[in-house]
């Protein structure tokens, strides 16, 4: 029972950690190398990793997807998608994906004349699922090792979240100690009393049996 409980909570917090890692904003410093649009046929599972159609359009089985090709300072490439999140999840309220695409074209630079930009994004790149992180916006930075500062949003969000979790947990513990534990103890006392009664009856029966025994 203890193992199941631990397993459940470890799994729960692992899921929460990956959810937060997917959803919370991060910054990468990259050089934009180009933009493109591909036709995307959404499959059942990986549909989860895409936003809905642009705010104002309707949902269809497939649609065009804007992509931004980038290269990082270490030479690795990263492809971002560029989709409106609109009023949906995650709540970035991004409506300007066309503008972001125009900015990406504006910042694209050739090798030797690098224009480094910090891409604010959320999501994961996974070639097996064909999913891309969603670029939220660009900020021009000095170089590939520019200091991006502290991730204030994530710090405030996670602190508030865990504060709330602790507050609820503390109240739940207090509630359980005051209201639920006494009931369980009561039931257990009842079982114990019944057990005592049965064993005392047993011994009485045994005493009665003993009366038939030959007295030694």
């Amino acid at each position, binding site marked *: 029972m203890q193992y199941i409980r631990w397993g459940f909570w470890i799994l729960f917090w692992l899921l929460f950690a990956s959810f937060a890692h997917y959803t919370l904003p991060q910054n990468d410093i990259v050089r934009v190398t180009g933009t493109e649009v591909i036709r995307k046929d959404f499959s059942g599972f990986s549909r989860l990793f895409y936003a*809905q159609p642009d*705010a104002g359009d309707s949902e269809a089985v497939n649609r065009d997807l804007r992509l931004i090709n980038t290269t990082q300072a270490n030479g690795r490439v990263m492809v971002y998608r560029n989709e409106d999140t*609109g*009023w*949906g999840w995650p*709540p*970035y*309220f*991004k*409506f*300007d994906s066309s*503008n972001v695409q125009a900015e990406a074209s504006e910042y694209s630079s050739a090798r030797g004349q690098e224009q480094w930009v910090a891409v604010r994004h959320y999501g994961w790149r996974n070639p097996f699922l064909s999913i891309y992180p969603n670029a*939220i*916006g660009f900020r021009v930075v000095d170089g590939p090792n520019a200091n991006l500062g502290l991730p204030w949003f994530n710090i405030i969000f996670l602190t508030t979240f865990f504060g709330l979790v602790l507050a609820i947990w503390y109240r739940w513990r207090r509630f359980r100690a005051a209201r639920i534990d006494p009931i369980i103890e009561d039931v257990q006392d009842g079982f114990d009393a019944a057990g005592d009664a049965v064993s005392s009856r047993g011994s009485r029966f045994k005493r009665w049996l003993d009366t038939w025994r030959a007295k030694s």
Partner: protein
Amino acid sequence: MALIRVAALGFVVLSVIYVLLSFSARAAFRRKLRREWDDERPTQDRDAFVKQGMEDYDASIRPKLFLGVYILPVCVVILMIYLTNFQ
């Protein structure tokens, strides 16, 4: 439409938070008044003292401050829309 769905869902969630907060704050204030009467033993009857205190509390600005539960998230959303799309 997505905006209406977000607004409706937000209204329901925020209403639950608003009700929980304002009820627990009212109960805490009532407890405080009772303790106050126990400590000070004014000439006034205990129930009347608490009733008077609660009426003053309801008339004051403090319970109305909880309406910020509705206003604050709307401001945050407007700020986020500005920062994401117009910066």
